[in-house]
């Protein structure tokens, strides 16, 4: 079966709409009756990834795909890409700008937090082209 597919565009630097995509994703999963614990983990991870797009990327989109055995969140952006993924995955490492830090972001917990909450986590990045993160949550 095909399931539910939704696309949420996320603008670079769009703090006014920050959190809307992940809030909508959360809402959809609740309507579908997905287990509360899973919703919670998706909420945490999708909020982190949405904020990542706003703070670090040049813009991109979040894709939600739900079928009867898993929730998949895919984030695709248009750059700048991550040169050293292992370094970026380390807790506490951040390249957030002063602007973003002054808003309380940039603790370097984003990627580790996503990985911790997802059942499966995959990241690929092409410097200059963009980053793709795929997270699966078993229902």
């Amino acid at each position: 079966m095909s399931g539910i597919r939704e696309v949420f565009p996320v603008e670079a630097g769009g703090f006014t709409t920050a959190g809307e995509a992940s809030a909508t994703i959360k809402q959809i999963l609740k309507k579908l009756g997905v287990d509360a614990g899973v919703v919670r983990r998706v909420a945490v991870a999708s909020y982190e990834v949405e904020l990542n797009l706003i703070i670090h990327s040049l813009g991109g989109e979040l894709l939600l795909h739900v079928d009867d055995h898993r929730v998949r969140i895919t984030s695709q952006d248009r750059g700048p890409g991550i040169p050293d993924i292992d370094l970026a995955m380390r807790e506490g490492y951040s390249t957030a700008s002063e602007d973003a830090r002054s808003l309380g972001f940039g603790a370097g917990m984003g990627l580790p937090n996503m990985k911790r909450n997802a059942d499966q986590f995959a990241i690929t990045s092409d410097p200059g082209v963009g980053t793709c993160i795929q997270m699966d949550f078993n229902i």
Partner: protein
Amino acid sequence: MPKTYHSVRLEKERCRGCTTCLKRCPTEAIRVWDGRAHILDERCIDCGECINVCPYHAKVATTDALSSISRFPYRIALPAPTLYGQFRGVACIDDILTGLLHLGFDAVFEVARGADIVSKAIMDALRHKTLPKPLISAACPAIVRLIQVRFPDLIDHIVDIRQPMEVAALVAKREFCQANDVPEDQVGCFFITPCPAKVTAIRNPIGHELSALDGAISILEIYGMLSAKIRKPMPTEKLATSTLFGVGWAKGGGECAALHAENSLAVGGIEHVIRVLEEMENNKLSDLEYFEGQACIGGCVGGALTFENSYIAKNAIRKLMAPMPDLSPDVAVDTKYLRNYPLYNTLPILPSSIMRLDEDIGEAMRKLEQIETITKTLPGYDCGACGSPTCHALAEDMALGFAGEMDCIHKLKGRLQDMAQQMLEISHTPRTPRAK
């Protein structure tokens, strides 16, 4: 399934079918059908928001009449501390409590004392138990029900200790019976309530079976009579025994203050509470120790069944608290209360499944897709004229079979224009002259 009890209800004759309550309900529990508001029972959390906003006072709360206390030989009044803020120029709490005795009660027991006991029990839990952070206050039943309906994944953060009014009733009844040597069934405990959410919580307790209270009388019901009694000069009895922190529970932030929890957050107003709970769901507040959320702005003083403006009431309470000794409930309350009374929940707080579209996830996905398709055909004005709060809610109602496409007046208008055009075309059909 038994019909859920609600204190909030509609006075049909007064309702004009406007969209004020429809747009303000935090759980989208209201529909306007056939020119009248209808409350969807399973969704309503009795927050009282609709009572506060209805311009025609068509939304009301079912409470007990003062006369109902006569069904018990002995009656105890349990005033919410919010009551203390309703009167101007009253210098001490004893005046108000004495006034209550003159309304036909045999005894008064301050719910603020219950709040003292609950404060101590929560402080004890914060010290000795490993609890999810932040711990969420269970004081406002509307917020607990909001969490059941909209944030089921936060249920395990809710404090598992009964509400101050319940604890107060347990202690009041036992102490009265022991002091006067009467059986418990002869004694009625009546909560003087600031809001409908508490009335519902007495009829349908969350977290335990039966309420220790026998009824709830609204502050508005006794306000007139009580202020007349208070104004009359009378010998005041020494009745107030709670700490200033117990009294402070009436105001937003009062619970956090009573707990002396430095790392806490107090939020009033249901829309703000929803926003903060969203943050909590995203794990953005896990460094916080305690969260006090209240449906009403300003806390219980903003309840729908109070008389005084919430800010004025808050100030009045602050003045009454000022001369009281700064004694923490942790020190003031004897630990025997924590041991001798059933303060802790005995039943789990269950998530409500009302937000889900179907029990079967495949079927729910099919409905969700249908809703998204319908939403795209609607104008997106969210005008409420169809009787559903938003276009999206109408789409959901349509997919679930509660509404039809022509309930949307904009769609109806378009359809009528098409039909008028068609009629015009029909009436103008040129006739070819008959061949001779």
